[in-house]
């Protein structure tokens, strides 16, 4: 379980998170929605300890992230898989090395086992015979899928998805949404996704949470979200430029 309490973060004079409170239960799929620049990715980076909060805390499986140092923090991060918005593939490595890096560096796997898992995870995201290619040889959509295969390779307990369907065509978006859902059902993985793609959000979420002005202003099931009285939520899910959310 992940508990986020009173999380504050500012960059210079810009306040990004202003007291985020959120509990993420084991095995659930939660989607954090919000406008571009509302701090969704910043919140994800706090969950895995890539950013340090100015105030507040993130507690993962009973351990407060801010209290962890060095090897303990690295060990905690190995419980997570992270799909970055731009995939963040290592461009000096092949696709196979990218997907297998977490397995080869964190030890305990034979070369054959790593190769087997790399092939398996790439097949899972619909890619075959691409292990020897470099990220520069791939299309944007393929890079995203390799990033997803890399996040899945170590079979983590939590997977963080930063805009999982951005840059993908509608057919591929649907297959990635199904994959996220299937993984969560089949392995009980806890999924935390941030997106502004509402079709994707409704499909993969057990629960949606809306981030607005640095706070979670609403959390509920997809059905509760559709029926929410909160004008901010309504404007966002309808995609209207009229309402409390500023378009620009």
């Amino acid at each position, binding site marked *: 379980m992940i508990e986020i309490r009173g999380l504050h973060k500012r960059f210079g004079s810009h306040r990004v998170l202003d007291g985020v409170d959120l509990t993420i239960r084991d095995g659930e799929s939660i989607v954090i929605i919000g406008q571009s620049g509302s701090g969704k990715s910043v919140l994800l980076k706090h969950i895995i300890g890539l950013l340090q909060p100015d105030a507040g805390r993130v507690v993962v499986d009973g351990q407060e992230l801010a209290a962890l140092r060095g090897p303990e923090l*690295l060990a905690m991060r190995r419980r997570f898989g992270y799909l970055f918005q731009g995939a963040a593939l290592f461009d000096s490595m092949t696709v196979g090395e990218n997907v297998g890096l977490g397995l080869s560096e*964190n030890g305990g796997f034979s070369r054959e086992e790593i190769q087997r898992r790399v092939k398996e995870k790439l097949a899972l995201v619909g890619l075959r015979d691409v292990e020897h290619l470099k990220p520069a040889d791939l299309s944007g959509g393929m890079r995203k899928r390799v990033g997803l295969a890399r996040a899945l390779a170590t079979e983590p307990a939590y997977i963080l998805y930063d805009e999982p369907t951005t840059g993908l065509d509608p057919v591929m978006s649907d297959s990635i949404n199904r994959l996220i859902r299937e993984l969560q059902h089949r392995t009980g993985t806890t999924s935390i996704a941030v997106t502004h793609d509402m079709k994707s959000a409704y499909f993969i979420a057990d629960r949606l949470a809306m981030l607005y002005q640095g706070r979670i202003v609403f959390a509920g099931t997809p059905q509760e979200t559709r029926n929410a009285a909160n004008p901010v939520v309504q404007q966002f899910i309808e995609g209207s430029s009229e309402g409390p959310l500023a378009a620009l």
Partner: protein
Amino acid sequence: MDERISTMPDRHPRLFRLADHTIFVVEEIGRIAKLLGGALAALPSLPRSRRLVVDQMVRLGLESMPLVVVISIFTGAVAAWQAAYQFQGWVPLRYLGEVIGKNVVVELGPVLTSLVVAGRISAAMAAELGTMRVTEQIDALEAMGISPSRYLVMPRFVSATVMLPVAVIFADALAIAGAFLVSNLLLDVSAHTYTMGLRRIFQVRDVVAGLEKAAVFGMFMALMGCHFGMRAEGGAQGVGRATTLAVVTSCVCVLILDYFLTTFLFPIAGV
């Protein structure tokens, strides 16, 4: 806030800017010290990371060799010509070997090689790590539970520290050869006279001290390249700025460190 404090930047802008710069410099030194601490703490995992270290040694050391060969031969050649010019009417040219040998081994070899290689190594490190930083590849490493200190910094630190002295050994030999060519072909100093001069002045202690200087320069240029690269921000412009800062700082560090290391490694009796 106290009014006297809140209006201080307006009333004393120069003082405020000086304080701001001082704090920034102290913070930067702290960050570099932390980076060094991280690299040293990762040294026990050297056997596990040997592939990364060897890869860096090839990239930093072997690929710098063509550059080292060219600058060393010409440095030696210029040193011979300059020495001959200064000897005119004062010192016989048969002493060229002594002067060249000493100068190359204690100063020209380590410092000129380090200056030229510093540009190449620290620029390459800052550009590569800077690009990794702005494209979230370093975040991705951390998210996978892999320490950037172990995976990125330590291999570069070790390989620069080891490969720079190796490059200087070649540079010393080639500079002495370059000086010999000028001495022998243009200044009519015989091979026998030149090598006798080299032998008379040769001391292992000088060569070792030169290599020690090169190792320290290597450490610093790796630290500067990694530090500015890992702190790059803001896309291509940020990577460019990081690369420039890494090169300039590495070169300045080499020259400043050279003075302090020289006074320490080559003490003058009675001073």
